[in-house]
């Protein structure tokens, strides 16, 4: 095989799986190390640089980082990254002085954002330090979008939300509340230099079944609208028997909210088997712990009413094939209930975008936009968050905002939006002495730290009481030690190797092999010391070694970054170097600020 080209930042970025999986590419290993060291403010700021809302995401993130975490390859349980993020946010103290400074003199460019949700706020956070004037038009009375209306307070306290949004709004963002945009044409006429659509996917999907219309409709609720009504205090109660239809995270929020405002017998009704649920495993667990029953393989067929009042729902009982694609009806069942909450998905609503402006839509009524630049078919109009390609999650909205910020900055400067700045990287040696590293290199066998929850009776009696207590500093430090330091890379210099085998012998997971090179990757893999477990993990293959012409091969899949290869290397051919990804949009703000 050809020697691996490790000069592309994405090679090492891919090894830091948590960072790679994170849509915003947060430097997870470094910030959790800072947490273990008690440097909470620094950890918070490192997070904020990329994901903008560490306190909010520390409680609500979909955590794409955790399934990706390499620790799962060793003992099956990922590092509790998300909960560690919350520790940094909870204990950060005063950070106002560390926030980016906002130039008094503006650059004369005005940007309009539609909707004050995470996408627009994150965009403002990127553009305000560069001197842009950002105006956000919000239909409601408060900022935050679905973060406020759709995530119940028992998962995300209002103070946390207010605090992190304020840090952006206080940069001088002009937020106009109660100002729904009803026409893109008129917004275009207001002379903004660019427009960003961050209006989310605000419409909950309905379910047209027999009995849906009529008087019973008052007891059939659309999930996200109902959550919103609860969040703003318009709804304060629900019937004793509640059926929640749908198994996404919104369904979990609905069932747990129902339990807190009057629901006693709450069931979540699923069409498909559990392993095909959209909800995160931990949210399912939390709901079940609170007494929610999850019923699988039941598809609603009819809302049953008596005298105009909802009395229950009929279901078809289904059997599924292996991939849960094709179902067969094997029976039917009736579930009595007082209320039904439909949490079967969300839709975008672009009725305010005139169809003759040059902004094109696809056959499903979605805006057509470039997945990299986020520009719609009308130059100068950009889209991000759930408004772009349908409902995803908060951290994806933030990532969209970063990408759109680069485009908007280009657009306003007359640079083609396709001209993207490239990510860079820094590799810094961690060697402090003969066998000393500036990171804690030992493997820690501790199991994942358990999260303490507030007692069941207490939490169900108070809608605003946060369920997870959070890690204390000792728990956090222990949990951080489980991190395998995937950002500290063993870096190999083939020209220094004398093939003494010291690294091969000491490697605790046998991930290194010195072997005659092969053209075929499969043949090379068959000759490695440890059998390949993950064929998708690219091999590192060195250039020919000076004494025999063999090559050093590393199967990164198993590496625990203990640095023993480098400690045992007599010639310094191995060294442990910390990889830092220099994200393009961060570089953009630096260069802009200097000029």
């Amino acid at each position, binding site marked *: 095989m050809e020697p691996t080209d490790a000069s592309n930042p994405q090679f090492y970025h891919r090894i830091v799986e948590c960072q790679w999986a994170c849509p915003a590419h947060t430097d997870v290993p470094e910030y959790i190390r800072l947490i273990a060291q008690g440097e909470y403010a620094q950890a918070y700021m490192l997070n904020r640089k990329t994901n903008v809302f560490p306190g909010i995401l520390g409680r609500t993130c979909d955590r794409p980082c955790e399934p990706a975490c390499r620790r799962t390859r060793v003992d099956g349980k990922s590092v509790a990254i998300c909960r560690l993020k919350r520790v940094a946010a909870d204990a950060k103290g005063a950070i106002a002085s560390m926030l980016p400074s906002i130039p008094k003199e503006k650059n004369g460019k005005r940007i309009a954002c539609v909707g004050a949700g995470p996408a627009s706020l994150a965009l403002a956070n990127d553009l305000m330090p560069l001197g842009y004037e950002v105006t956000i038009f919000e239909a409601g009375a408060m900022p935050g979008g679905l973060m406020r209306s759709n995530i119940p307070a028992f998962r995300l306290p209002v103070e946390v939300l207010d605090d992190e949004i304020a840090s952006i709004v206080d940069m001088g963002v002009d937020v106009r509340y109660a100002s729904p945009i009803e026409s893109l044409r008129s917004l275009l006429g207001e002379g903004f230099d660019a427009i960003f659509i961050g209006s989310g996917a605000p419409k909950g999907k309905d379910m047209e079944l027999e009995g849906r219309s009529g008087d019973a409709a008052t007891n059939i609720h659309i999930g996200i609208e109902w959550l919103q009504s609860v969040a703003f205090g318009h709804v304060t109660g629900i019937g004793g028997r509640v059926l929640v239809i749908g198994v996404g995270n919104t369904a979990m929020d609905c069932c747990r909210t129902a339990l807190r405002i009057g629901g006693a017998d709450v069931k979540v009704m699923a069409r498909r088997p559990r392993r095909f649920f959209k909800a995160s495993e931990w949210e399912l667990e939390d709901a079940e712990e609170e007494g929610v029953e999850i019923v699988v393989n039941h598809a609603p067929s009819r809302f049953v009413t008596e005298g105009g009042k909802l009395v229950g729902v009929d279901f078809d009982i289904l059997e599924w094939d292996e991939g849960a694609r094709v179902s067969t009806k094997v029976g039917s069942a009736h579930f009595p209930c007082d209320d039904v909450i439909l949490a079967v998905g969300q839709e975008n609503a672009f009725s305010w975008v005139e169809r003759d402006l040059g902004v094109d839509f696809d056959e499903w009524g979605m805006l057509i936009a470039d997945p990299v630049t986020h520009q719609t078919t009308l130059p100068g109009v950009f889209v991000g968050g759930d408004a772009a390609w349908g409902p995803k999650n908060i951290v994806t909205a933030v990532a969209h905002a970063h990408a759109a910020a680069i485009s908007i900055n280009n657009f306003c400067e007359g640079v083609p939006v396709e001209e993207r700045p490239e990510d860079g990287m820094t590799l810094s040696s961690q060697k402090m002495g003969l066998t000393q590293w500036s990171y804690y290199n030992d*493997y820690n*066998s501790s199991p994942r730290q358990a999260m303490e929850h507030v007692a069941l009776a207490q939490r169900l009696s108070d809608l605003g009481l946060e369920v997870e207590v959070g890690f204390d500093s000792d728990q956090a430090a222990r949990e951080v030690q489980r991190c395998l330091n995937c950002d500290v890379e063993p870096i190999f210099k083939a020209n220094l190797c004398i093939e*003494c085998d010291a690294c091969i012998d000491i490697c605790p997971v046998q991930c290194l092999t010195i072997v005659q090179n092969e053209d075929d990757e499969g043949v090379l893999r068959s000759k490695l010391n440890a*059998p390949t477990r993950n064929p998708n993990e690219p091999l590192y293959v060195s250039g020919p070694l000076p004494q025999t012409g063999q090559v050093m091969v590393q199967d990164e899949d*198993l590496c625990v970054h203990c640095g023993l290869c480098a*400690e045992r290397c007599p*010639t310094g051919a191995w060294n442990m170097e910390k990889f830092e990804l220099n994200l393009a949009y961060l570089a953009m703000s630096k260069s802009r600020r200097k000029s």
Partner: protein
Amino acid sequence: MTSISKPRIPLATLPANEIGLTVRDYEGAMSTLCAGCGHDSVTAALVRSLFELSIPPHRIVKMSGIGCSSKTPTYFASGAHGFNSVHGRMAPIAAGANAANRSSIHIGISGDGDSLSIGAGHLVHAIRRNVRMLYVIENNGVYGLTKGQFSASADVGSTAKHGEANEVAPIDPVQLALSLGATFVARGFSGDKAQLVPILKAALEHRGFALVDVISPCVQFNNHVGSTKSYHYVRDHELKEIEQDFVPPMRETAARLPHGGTIVVTLPDGGRIRFGTLPEEYDPRDRGAALHYAAQAQQRGEIPTGVLFVDEGTRDIHELNSTPDEPLISLPFEALCPGADALARFQDGFQ
């Protein structure tokens, strides 16, 4: 030294051997030898060999003398028995241990100083007695522990780290052992475990004294230009004409050599040493040929490696001394110590 111990990582993919142990179960304490020391690779090769032979660690007796090499037993098979003797006295300790308990597997680890200088007198007699053991010499040509003086195996002309050349003729442990009647003589290189592991496995199965001379570079004091025992020099001058493999009993498929080869030597438990390519007219069962081959190579400045000689026919220490079939510990006290009357009768026999 390393900052941490080699971490125990519970990998489900780590294969187990016939007795359910993984290769990690044959490791010992962390090495405190210099980074890059050849001896650590010898340790790794031993760990691998014992694992692959599925030897229960408690059946192993590991012994050594003094020197860098003699730290090796600490670094493998922490579940084994061990004895660290005074300088150069590993061989008689091993002979005694082997005489007393023939059911154990005896492994002696020594160095060129321990075996060819202070302990040379003991080594030669252990060879003559055909003590049933694996005797490894980790041979680096210098006294590393005392900072790099020439040892008895340093070649004439080989230079020390500061430049002076050795002028005294070396002892070649291979020729020494062959001339004394050793029944298994091999040489390996710590930088080539693909060859060393099968050699060690064959040696462990050999019925008698198995001497394995392993060129094991001292990365600190003898790995420079001018040394004849550096990684680079050995790779440049290694003579790998003798190709062999160890075939475990009943498992033809486990062999590395692709085809039959000309000579097969069967070991007592059914394992075989199968020779592949050999120099012309070379027979590894012919002591004279082996001695001639080793001497010729030495004259040319070449380092022949492989199983150079093997003889499964000569009687070992137990046959020579008619020791009981069982280890002494399993004999009843009356048999071991039959009393004054028996002694008197025995002595009468000499009158």
